[in-house]
């Protein structure tokens, strides 16, 4: 999949901007007001989309972006006026959807052939409506505004003016160095870091073509004020490439030709930019440069390759340092070097893992949109609370939780939250509340979807499950959690009526399947009338786990440490068997079934007596059991590899890993063994 780099960048940029825009819009709509910052942001986004789309010849997108830009231009000019928020953001959001749709068409190598005409018409009619209500104010502002944007680019202002010296410099470039205007621009750009006001002649260096000639003839005149010392500035200016001549003077006042510029600018700066000025002052000038993190985007497959490679290195490191040839040798220096190597490989591994970590905030914020749209359709007022959005998880996992999360939020909205009247009748606040929470706990991440709706109906779930033959036990014998977990089974839906969003009984089992595939578990808690809570427990990362190596016959198996509760050597008389030969063991008054791994996997071994081997007590969510193995080998960090596709899936095996000696160890899938 190689696309033109330009197109690639466009797609990336557009997708990001759209997501950013969506977030802003929903935030604004929720708070029913739109700040200057938000307006500027939206305006900026629309402007970028407009110009880059036009450049890429995606006219439909460009036209739509243009009309939305007009809209926000108007809003910016008339801030504080009453705005029809609902219509405005409905329009903006459908605009976003349209652009997103087109971009994804482009991404799939299709044609961006959708028509944005209707949206554009809507937009212009909305604009007309607004204009009519605010007709008078426009006249005053618009002319002035147009002028200032131009000048603002070429000037820069920050901080106060105390302790600053004014300088004037004239720069001549060597003959034939070409692109004088770009070079001049670089000078201005570099000075921005130290100077707090800059004026220069010719004033529009990049935009105008005459500037090149002008600089060649008259030199580039620049006036600025700074608190840096003269020598320092001189040093900096002398570093300019192709510099022929530099005059640097410390002055009390700028020369007349620059003064003209200054005065002109001051007038303009006074009014419309006021708010921008305030923004600048809020953040101290020093941090501006520090805050700009340099970020690159990397193809995920490259990261996967890197991770694989690091995994190989970890294995190879163990292969070298634990090489059987070294046994019994006194190798002081070798051991020292080996320790250093291990330290570095561990660090390398940590860093690679951290590269792949992404905060869940993006995924969480996408839910805002779903809550908004559905709340409107279903006529329910809902507030979405997000906790712990900065929690980081592996990129692979993020991709897998987005869909399940969407299902869960939809379910909560559709089934969980009651109608307004019902809520008021039961003494709850009119506005429903859905909470999305993410938190770290040990090696796991918990993602919790909570609502304060009507909760799950235990009885009807049980009855329905019984009717479909999903449960056989009596209701009294089952815990609440066990009953609730029935809704995760395929084909189960308690909702009598199928709605647009949910109720076909496919949602929850898809959720479960998705979560299962990343090694996560789901547990459901609910109390009637107070709401329900669905928590998803997922591992922090899939690629490297802590495992306990055990031996069964000649084979080696890895049991993930997270699922081990304890291991112990049983006494002969502790193991009891029922009439069917099912073995069990009592541990502190609780009976656990025993699974002998050599029997399950049909492995030849000499260790069969219960007191010869080792019991490993493993647990998974609700179930626990003892696994009987020959012996323990040790704890190890292992790199998880998938079984070859030809073998597909062997039951009870989650994957495999390569041990330090080059042998393969199979990783047990504890939950599927417990389900036997």
């Amino acid at each position: 999949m190689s696309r033109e780099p330009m197109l690639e960048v466009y797609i990336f940029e557009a997708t990001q901007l759209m997501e950013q825009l969506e977030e802003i819009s929903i935030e604004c709509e929720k708070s029913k007001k739109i700040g200057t910052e938000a307006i500027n942001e939206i305006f900026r986004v629309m402007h970028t989309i407009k110009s880059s789309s036009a450049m890429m010849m995606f006219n439909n997108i460009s036209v739509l972006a243009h009309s939305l830009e007009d809209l926000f231009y108007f809003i910016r000019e008339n801030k504080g006026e009453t705005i029809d928020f609902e219509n405005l953001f409905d329009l903006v959001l459908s605009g976003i959807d349209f652009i997103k749709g087109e971009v994804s068409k482009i991404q799939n190598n299709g044609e961006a052939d959708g028509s944005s005409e209707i949206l554009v018409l809507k937009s212009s009619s909305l604009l007309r409506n607004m204009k009519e209500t605010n007709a008078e104010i426009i006249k005053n502002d618009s002319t002035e505004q147009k002028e200032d944007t131009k000048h603002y680019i070429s000037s820069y202002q920050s901080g106060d003016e105390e302790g600053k010296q004014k300088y004037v410099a004239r720069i001549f470039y060597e003959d034939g160095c070409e692109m004088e205007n770009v070079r001049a621009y670089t000078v201005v750009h570099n000075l921005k870091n130290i100077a707090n006001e800059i004026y220069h002649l010719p004033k529009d260096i990049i935009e105008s073509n005459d500037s090149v000639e002008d600089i060649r003839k008259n030199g580039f005149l620049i006036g600025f004020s700074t608190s840096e010392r003269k020598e320092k500035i001189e040093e900096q200016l002398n570093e300019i490439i192709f510099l022929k001549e530099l005059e640097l003077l410390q002055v009390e006042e700028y020369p007349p030709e620059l003064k003209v510029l200054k005065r002109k600018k001051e007038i303009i700066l006074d009014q419309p930019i006021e708010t921008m000025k305030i923004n600048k002052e809020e953040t101290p000038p020093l941090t501006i440069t520090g805050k700009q993190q340099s970020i690159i985007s990397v193809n995920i497959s490259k990261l996967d390759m890197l991770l694989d490679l690091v995994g190989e290195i970890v294995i190879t490191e163990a292969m070298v340092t634990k090489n059987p040839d070294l046994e019994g040798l006194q190798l002081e220096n070798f051991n020292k070097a080996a320790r250093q190597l291990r330290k570095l490989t561990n660090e390398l591994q940590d860093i690679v893992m951290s590269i792949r970590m992404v905060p869940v905030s993006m995924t969480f914020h996408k839910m805002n949109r779903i809550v908004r749209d559905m709340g409107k359709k279903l006529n329910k007022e809902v507030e979405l609370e997000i906790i712990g959005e900065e929690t980081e998880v592996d990129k692979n996992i993020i991709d897998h939780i987005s869909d399940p999360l969407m299902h869960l939020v939809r379910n909560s909205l559709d089934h969980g939250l009651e109608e307004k009247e019902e809520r008021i009748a039961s003494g709850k606040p009119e506005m429903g509340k859905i909470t999305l929470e993410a938190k770290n706990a040990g090696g796991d991440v918990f993602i919790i979807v909570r609502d304060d709706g009507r909760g799950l109906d235990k009885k009807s779930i049980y009855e329905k499950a019984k009717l479909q033959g999903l449960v056989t036990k009596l209701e009294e014998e089952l815990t609440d959690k066990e009953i609730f977990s029935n809704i995760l089974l395929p084909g189960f839906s308690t909702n009598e009526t199928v709605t647009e969003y949910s109720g076909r009984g496919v949602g929850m089992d898809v959720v479960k399947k998705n979560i299962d595939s990343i090694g996560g578990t789901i547990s459901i808690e609910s109390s009637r009338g107070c709401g329900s809570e669905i928590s998803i427990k997922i591992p922090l990362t899939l690629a490297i786990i802590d495992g306990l190596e055990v031996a069964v016959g000649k084979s080696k198996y890895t049991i993930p440490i997270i699922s081990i509760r304890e291991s112990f050597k049983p006494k002969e008389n502790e193991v009891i068997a029922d009439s069917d030969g099912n073995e069990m063991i009592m541990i502190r008054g609780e009976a656990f079934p025993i699974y002998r791994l050599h029997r399950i996997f049909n492995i030849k071994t000499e260790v069969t007596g219960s007191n010869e081997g080792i019991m490993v007590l493993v647990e998974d969510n609700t179930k626990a059991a003892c696994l009987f193995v020959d012996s323990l080998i040790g704890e190890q960090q292992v790199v998880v590899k998938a079984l070859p596709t030809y073998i597909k899936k062997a039951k009870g095996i989650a994957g495999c890993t390569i041990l330090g000696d080059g042998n393969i160890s199979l990783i047990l899938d504890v939950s599927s063994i417990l389900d036997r």
Partner: protein
Amino acid sequence: MAGVLDEIMEESEDTQKGKFLTFFVGKESYGIEIKFVTEIIGIQDITEVPELPIYVRGIINLRGKIIPVIDVRLRFKKEAKEYNDRTCIVVIDIKGISVGLIVDNVAEVINIDDSNIVPPPDIKTGFHNRYVRGIGKVGKEVNLLLDCDKLLTDGELDKIYETV
């Protein structure tokens, strides 16, 4: 053996046409198209994987890549034989799936013209007939030419998964 392999790797796709790697399983000589063969390695430690058909002996670690190995003897329902230093694993790559075939020993690389390949007799008595796509004549000897696709994917595996 390594020399044979190097020769194979150096040759381009075109010159691979009509070339077969021959190996023995029991008394019969089998041929496999050279373009499927990635490499030939000696027998290695095999990690057993539970709940697989008996002829899939398990998985091996081939320089960090994990590939399943099939015992051709067992695949053709012959008696199992103890592995010795002549036993080889022929690593083949079919449609991106790498699989190792355990064979008694590897013989040579030979040219067989299309004109010397005849279809197998149309009798269903021979139990491994369905894996043989043709019979190649070289001098007085005959080679059973294997159909790699069928060797790996004849639905038998799927059936086993369904019953498990």
